[in-house]
């Protein structure tokens, strides 16, 4: 059966600007009709959309997004940034460091990287501009640091990986902690080296009085409570990883209204944006599923795996090829679509090479983090730039120095699986 035609059509249509979800669905359906006939294809269209949505595990997607949207609209994140700002602002590059620190905190609260980038861009970029920071540093930092949200638990990326590969979501969450901290450390290193070479891009800010700094800690308590509620809830066994999303959203709502100045109109707005993001994500998942069934019917995936298996490469060589493919795809295609389209192929292959499923989840997530900020399609850069009224090109320029750090961290994670597996092994989650 001819795989080349629908495959080429898919790539061309995506490049020519067809919405990714539609491109996947349409080429998948036409391809399936060519491969197995029209009646069976109608059968695929009958069951696939329904079954994709009717999934209890995936209810975490809208609920974690809702949580992030609620947090981004209340003063919780603002207070978090303010604290980091007061404590770190006076160091050279300190406002950017504060953005990384606050993003790390936000990442422990919420699982959606674009929501993180949007919230932090609105809060911290104006602040950095006020002190004369270069836009490239400001927007680059915010875009990159936003991706921490999918590595540090809770994480939508890890949830989707867990659902697709039947890997324990709790263990994946645990495994993301150390790589997340390592990633944040990478960002800090890049910022420090960057401002050391170019002090002019980050003028020093005055050191606030000690009393003011100490006072800034108190308003952060709602954030701490929420982290305790969600992660504490999961790891104490009170709630399942799936339920944590609902508990987190509910907590964000209550704290937002009670202590975060969340208005009713903002609640409605959060709901609406959650709906938009959810529909957008699921449209892609549905399209990718239809395309996936077409691919499977051609047996191309199986043959590809068999072929890769015969390559005269050691296991790590094959793994590096796969990682490279993820990075290259990440330049052009939506991260979620990549994961859904490729995992059914790469996961069994990587498992057959004897690698750990949890560790591979972390590696895939790391490439996803990178893909979110690489041009030409770098969703986090788009979001950070638009939320701070900056040009997208400026954002991409600002991201470049961080990419070096990203690749170093990726290399470490690949070379030292213990970095990912140590914590889940220790707590045996």
């Amino acid at each position, binding site marked *: 059966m001819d795989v080349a035609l629908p495959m080429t059509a898919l790539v061309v249509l995506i490049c020519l600007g067809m919405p990714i979800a539609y491109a996947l669905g349409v080429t998948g359906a036409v391809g399936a009709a060519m491969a197995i006939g029209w009646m069976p294809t109608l059968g695929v269209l009958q069951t696939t959309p329904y079954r994709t949505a009717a999934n209890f595990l995936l209810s975490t997607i809208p609920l974690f997004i809702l949580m992030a949207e609620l947090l981004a609209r209340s003063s919780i994140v603002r207070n978090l940034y303010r604290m980091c700002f007061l404590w770190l602002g006076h160091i050279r590059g300190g406002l950017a460091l504060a953005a990384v620190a606050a993003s790390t905190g936000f990442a422990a609260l919420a699982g959606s990287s674009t929501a993180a980038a949007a919230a932090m861009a609105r809060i911290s970029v104006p602040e950095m501009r006020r002190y004369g920071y270069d836009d490239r540093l400001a927007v680059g930092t915010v875009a990159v640091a936003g991706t921490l949200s999918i590595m540090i638990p809770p994480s939508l990326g890890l949830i989707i990986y867990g659902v697709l590969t*039947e890997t*324990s979501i709790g263990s994946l969450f645990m495994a993301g902690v150390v790589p997340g901290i390592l990633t944040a450390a990478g960002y800090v290193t890049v910022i420090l080296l960057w401002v050391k070479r170019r002090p002019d891009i980050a003028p020093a800010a005055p050191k606030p009085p000690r009393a003011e700094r100490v006072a800034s800690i108190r308003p952060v308590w709602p954030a701490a409570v929420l982290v305790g509620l969600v992660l504490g809830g999961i790891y104490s066994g009170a709630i399942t990883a799936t339920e944590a999303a609902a508990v987190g959203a509910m907590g964000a709502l209550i704290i937002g209204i009670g202590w975060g100045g969340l208005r009713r109109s903002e609640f409605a707005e959060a709901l609406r944006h959650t709906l938009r993001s959810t529909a957008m994500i699921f449209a892609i998942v549905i399209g990718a599923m239809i395309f996936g*069934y077409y691919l*499977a019917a051609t047996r191309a995936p199986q043959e590809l795996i068999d072929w890769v298996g015969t390559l005269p490469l050691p296991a790590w060589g094959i793994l590096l090829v796969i990682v490279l493919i993820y990075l290259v795809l990440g330049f052009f295609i939506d991260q979620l679509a990549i994961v859904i389209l490729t995992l059914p192929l790469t996961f069994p292959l990587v498992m057959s090479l004897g690698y750990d499923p949890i560790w591979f989840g972390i590696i895939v997530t790391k490439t996803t983090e990178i893909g979110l900020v690489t041009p030409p399609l770098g969703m986090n850069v788009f979001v950070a730039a638009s939320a701070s009224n900056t040009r997208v090109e400026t954002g991409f320029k600002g991201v470049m120095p961080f990419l070096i750090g990203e690749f170093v961290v990726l290399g470490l994670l690949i070379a030292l699986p213990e970095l990912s597996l140590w914590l889940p092994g220790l707590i*045996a989650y």
Partner: protein
Amino acid sequence: DDTITLRVAHSYPVRHTGAQAMEYWGKLVDEQSNGRLKFEIYPAEQLAKSSDLLDAAINGIADIAYAAPLYISDRLPLSTIAAVPLVGNETDPRAQVKAFSTLALGTLNEVEFLPQGVRVIEAAVTYPYQLMTTKIRIERPDQLQGVKLRSSGGIQERSVEAMGAIPVAIPAPDLYPALQRGTVDGSLFNVPTAGGYKLEEQLRYSTNNLNFGLFPSIYVINETVWQKLPEDLQNLLIKTGKEMDIFLDKLYGERAVTFAADLEKRGGAVYDIAEADLPLWAERLKPVQADWVKEFDGRGMPASRVYQEWEALLTR
């Protein structure tokens, strides 16, 4: 040439026992038909989600598909009979498989499958679901009051409730940590599958002689495809399917032995409920059986007939 190739779709991951069994079945078919009939196997939900595999066979996406009635109880309500707890007194797994095969290829085909355009060619059940716990050894149902048990929904959820325990829905891959963290105190599970999730590392006790239902596995073929097959190949499919059952039974038997040994190593046991206490369990679970019959009879299905036949097949 006159080689017939059938697209076979199932949901087991590639390295799962179920997937190995399918490979084995395909090999038997190829060999015994001298290459006239071949399976082209699509594992791991490649052609359809497990809940949609029945439709995949109906719609012609696949020729043969694995249908798990418990995942699609809305579509195969009568086939969930196997999951009804404590029916009959047969405890030998091989006899249970044989009984279900008889029911499925006969009555269930007639009342449930053929009207939907597919035909059962192979049917089996797993080892009976047992009560497995992390800390407490349960002897009588009243000890289960307020105990949190993972259930996979459907009839199992009703059984858990009938025993006074609290059903908790947890996806199988997350059951291990849920047991460890105490999100649940135990689970209804069957021995061969529990071993697959390494649950013996967290469990300590498992009953041996209860029967919280059996997990039915059914393979259906598109009826149009079936009618086009020559009769000798039709017979061959059914015969080789039964040979696959023997292959699986052997694997399950080995797993059951290691599972019991693992629990003992942890200071626990696979134990029998005392004969004298068995009626206590039967009494608790009677309403689940009665409800099953009443509910589907009420929807105009021949549930009484299926239940009586199943009970007769499972009574020594």
